[in-house]
């Protein structure tokens, strides 16, 4: 299955959005995870958290209507919904670490079949820092990794993460343009695949040992 990056991201964001349930508190990471907000089904209402200091984050303001006092965790101007609240970083992470965030969606450099995640450092090359990612992955009830299945040909879904971990065994689900994988006690289970790919192709592009679900479905996007 050959799709460009833009199409891939759209597939991923759409599929992740289907995981969200009414009334949930959700934290979307910077980049692709942020796109999930655009695909939330109409009958589903969730509250978005931005770890720099709000729940009830709204859409990007119209040009010229930016408020310098209202930014998201990426430093960009956003808005707040009328059911929202601003708070300090301590309360923000009480919500995160305390298990009050129902779903967190993040990107990854690597993820593995034991639910380990690496997304904050490439030693000697790139050291952005973990920001709030370690707390989010440790504290959120459900951790979804949203990323393209491979990076320039490199396999990112591993038997064992090689890069330093963000958290150990905390990932619940991995959504890529090729399919949906769930971390279980038995290992990484392929639950859904994209209609334009095959199980063989997914296995070939995955370093981890994939268990193929007996009720394998086509992604409904």
């Amino acid at each position, binding site marked *: 299955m050959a799709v460009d990056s833009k199409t891939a991201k759209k597939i991923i964001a759409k599929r992740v959005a289907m995981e969200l349930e009414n009334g949930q*508190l959700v934290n979307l990471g910077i980049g692709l995870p942020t796109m999930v907000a655009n695909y939330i089904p109409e009958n589903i*209402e969730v*509250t978005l958290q931005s770890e720099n200091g709000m729940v009830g984050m709204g859409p990007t303001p119209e040009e010229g209507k930016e408020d310098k006092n209202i930014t998201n965790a990426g430093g960009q101007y956003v808005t707040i919904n009328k059911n929202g*609240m601003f708070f300090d970083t301590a309360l923000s992470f009480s*919500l995160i670490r305390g298990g009050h965030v129902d779903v967190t969606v993040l990107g990854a450099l690597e993820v593995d079949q034991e639910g380990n995640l690496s997304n904050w450092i490439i030693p000697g090359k790139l050291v952005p820092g973990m920001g709030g990612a370690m707390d989010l992955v440790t504290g959120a009830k459900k951790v979804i990794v949203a990323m393209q299945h491979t990076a320039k040909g490199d396999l990112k879904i591993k038997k064992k993460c090689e890069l330093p971990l963000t958290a150990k065994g905390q990932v619940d689900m991995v959504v890529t343009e090729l399919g949906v994988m769930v971390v279980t006690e038995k290992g990484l289970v392929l639950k859904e695949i994209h209609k334009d790919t095959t199980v063989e192709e997914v296995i070939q592009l995955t370093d981890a040992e994939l268990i193929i679900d007996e009720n394998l479905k086509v992604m409904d996007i």
Partner: protein
Amino acid sequence: MMSKVVDYSAVKPLLKDGMSLMIGGFLGCGTPEGLISLIIEMDLKDLTIICNDTSFVDKGIGRLVANGNVKKVITSHIGTNPESGRRMNEGTLEVELSPQGTLIERIRAAGSGLGGVLTPTGVGTMVEDGKQKIQLNGKDYLIEMPLKADLALVFASTVDSFGNAYYKGTTRNFNPIIALAGDKVVVEAEELVEVGKIDPEVVMTPGVLVDYIVKGED
């Protein structure tokens, strides 16, 4: 989405004999009296109550103690309610005393995913009995354990229908902290308003923590 605003009767299924409750208030100021009355009306038994104090015999949590609903109380002070002392002495009420600052941090720790609290308060006193002590940077600290509850009963002065809450004056006390540490959270609103009526900058408890809202009686 379903509204969180319900009648007192809809709260009844949440309230059960033997459960643990956190209840807001400081000597009755900021306590949800309507929910207290509901518990008395249901005549619940064997409750464990986590709260700052047992108030007065005829006010707030003090009414539950006097009515015999409480098996155990985890609190910082029982001195203003003679019924608490009497029942403790006759063996019908178990009292676990925790220093006020420790008590609130234990609740906060549970609600914030922390493993416990490292506090100097109580070192060298009876409070350290049975607890782990740890030396950090040459100073002794007690490891005080987190406190959760099945249900948190919160009083708030103004609540919108999403559950965003605002506390007036000194009614705030334990209320915003227990809202983090109950498996379910019920807020009794002195005043109920539409969503958007409380400025997001002055909301004190985010509605996402709140499961049910009842309108308090005047």
